């Protein structure tokens, strides 16, 4: 058994990942509802030139200037996206993808520029891309918790406004609320969350931290407050358990492990969520499907028997019916149902024919269709 409270590194990493999960989960819920789930992805990529510029200006890797540079670059990128979407016909997703890639490319240019300089320390692009949870220090976690707490407190204070922003921006504008400024503020909070996460899980996986907890929580509730709380809880759970898992099993990087735990939670909630889940839907549809499939099969059997007007007992095998039906239809079950209702009968080894009642039912269907057509 691992000694969770004794292992300093693990404790720091788990704490950091947990804080990240809580902040990203809570803020991600709003982004999810606003159909801005991919903003996290764009922000985290766009942070690269900011990091490089901060490095160039300060000449070191002190966390605070680097974080501020990252936040500033991400912020500028979202402003660019908003400007392009508002003032041209380029759609939102194109603007987002473009700013993501262009900013990242520019960051790459700056990084290669830095690496060329004789005084350059290793710029550590790898840790930026994939995170380096193991290198988290106590100071980092303290900084993360201060920033994260600030985000969450602001979220709580402006709860009503952000709710309005997520569900009905126009209504908010009509009330005279500064919706555009709120939008900017929300993006700023998201920027902070992303910057917190870059050190832990890296660029690519940061987007999962924003999207996945919210997506899982959304399946479990229809109300905002429970959704935000559940998403934050899922974030914490995934962060901490991912950190623990990656410390138990060798060669298991923290960031990707957290994301896989998160993805598992999403899949589980998609399948098992009460009322909404796939399992629930499957059970409900399973009850409905046979009756919907009954009529076509009966009609096919009737049509086949019309080919043999002189022998009412001429049977047809199930295979024929199967070729006439949509792929995957459960013909066997339908036949049993039809037989139970007395509409068809077995007339030999695996051969089926409509009963007189079934024939009448089929003719009635045809009449009904004719009436509808005329």
């Amino acid at each position: 058994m691992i000694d969770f409270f004794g292992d300093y590194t693990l404790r720091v990493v788990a704490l950091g990942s947990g804080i990240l999960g809580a902040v990203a989960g809570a803020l991600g819920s709003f982004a999810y509802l606003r159909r801005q789930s991919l903003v996290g992805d764009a922000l985290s990529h766009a942070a690269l030139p900011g990091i490089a510029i901060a490095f160039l200006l300060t000449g070191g890797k002190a966390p605070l200037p680097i974080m501020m540079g990252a936040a500033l670059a991400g912020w500028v990128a979202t402003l660019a996206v908003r400007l392009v979407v508002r003032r041209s016909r380029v759609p939102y997703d194109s603007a987002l993808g473009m700013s993501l890639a262009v900013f990242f490319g520019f960051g790459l240019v700056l990084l290669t520029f830095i690496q060329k300089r004789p005084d350059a320390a290793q710029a550590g692009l790898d840790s930026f891309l994939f995170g380096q949870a193991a290198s988290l220090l106590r100071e980092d976690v303290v900084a993360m918790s201060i920033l994260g707490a600030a985000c969450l407190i602001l979220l709580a204070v402006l709860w009503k406004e952000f709710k309005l922003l997520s569900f009905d921006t126009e209504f908010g504008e009509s009330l005279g609320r500064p919706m555009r400024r709120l939008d900017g503020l929300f993006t700023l909070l998201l920027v902070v969350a992303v910057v917190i996460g870059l050190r832990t899980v890296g660029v690519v996986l940061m987007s999962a931290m924003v999207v996945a907890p919210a997506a899982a929580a959304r399946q479990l509730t229809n109300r905002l407050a429970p959704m935000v709380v559940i998403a934050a809880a899922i974030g914490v759970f995934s962060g901490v358990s991912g950190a623990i898992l990656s410390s138990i099993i060798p060669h298991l990087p923290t960031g990707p492990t957290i994301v896989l735990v998160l993805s598992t939670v999403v899949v589980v909630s998609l399948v098992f969520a009460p009322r909404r889940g796939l399992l629930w839907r499957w059970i409900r549809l399973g009850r409905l499907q046979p009756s919907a499939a009954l009529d076509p099969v009966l009609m096919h059997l009737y049509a086949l028997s019309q080919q043999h007007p002189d022998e009412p007992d001429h049977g047809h095998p199930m295979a024929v019916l199967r070729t006439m039906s949509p792929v995957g239809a459960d013909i066997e079950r339908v036949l049993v149902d039809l037989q139970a209702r007395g509409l068809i009968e077995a007339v030999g080894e695996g051969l089926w024919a409509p009963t007189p009642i079934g024939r009448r039912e089929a003719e009635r269907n045809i009449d009904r269709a004719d009436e509808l057509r005329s």
Partner: protein
Amino acid sequence: MSAELEILAIAVVTATAAALPGTYLVLRRTAMVSDAISHAILPGIVLAFFLTHDLNSPLLLIAAAATGVLTVVLIEALIRSRLVPEDASIGIVFPALFSIGVIMISRGASGVHLDTDAVLLGELAFAPFHRLAVGGVDLGPAALWSMGAILVVNAVLILLAWKELKLATVDASLAALLGFQPVVVHYGLMTMVSVTAVGAFDAVGSILVVALMIAPPATAYLLAERLGPMIGLAVAIAAAGATLGWAAALAMDVSIAGSIATASGVVFAVAFLTAPQRGLLAQARRRSGQRLDFAVRMLLVHLLHHEGTPEAAEECRESGLHRHLGWREKWTKRVVSRARQRALVDRSGELVLPTDAGRQVADDAVIGFTC
């Protein structure tokens, strides 16, 4: 051909090959799928690498392209379940696949050379080192041949399926109604995106594929009004951006791929500012023109209203107009001179009087308001 020129050729071919499917991505509002695919192909590449232990094996390309299609299938399945919106579906699927790839690398490839950042970032400068040789004859860089083949295939497929792609992009419901199977078109396009992304990943890196796929078509979208010209422009802009980025990278000795992405962004920014119809400058010019136009009409209405009345001497005096209209003096001067330019007003001593044409304009303006 020198190495620099070979790099330029690879860059231009890659950029144009990416711009072709990219145009449809931009128009169909599925641009972020290119981002998802370019990340999610990682596990496919790693798996194929574990099987072949050869980074240049064609199996890598096939596996990666298959993973790209799998990504799209998973995203579509999530969207169709109607449990998760489109953007979140993308944001769930590709990090999961990417994580699997990273974990596979760190668990299996220790000691084997497969860098994740090499896969993700690529370095165009190294592309000329992989040569294609047949029977000992050097035929040039392998990337040029593979991207050239992808470019040709993309172009041919788009020409062959021009009508289907266009209809499925502009009106998917109508396409389905006419029996064109927009779903097949969609998956065909996504396969094209996957193959292009995979082909480009070792030349320019996966993240910059996104820049090449989106930026030139988005730029062309600002300039063109029809699909044909838009694709043509996108290809031309892609080539120009690649050349520009390449030249800048050579001059400053920095990452070529990053420089090309930056150049594509700069080209977009220039078009965003200066596009003849849709640019910011054109918008501003149109707006200020409309403002001036409106002001001229208001001036004429004012003049007409007071013409022939006892107050006319005061209300229509040029030096006092700005007070009566509540405008700033400078602006009033501009409006009057504009009206005189268009022969809508005339000066008579101190007074400004509407001409016949001006009267007509004022009448129209007033009737337009009362109607």
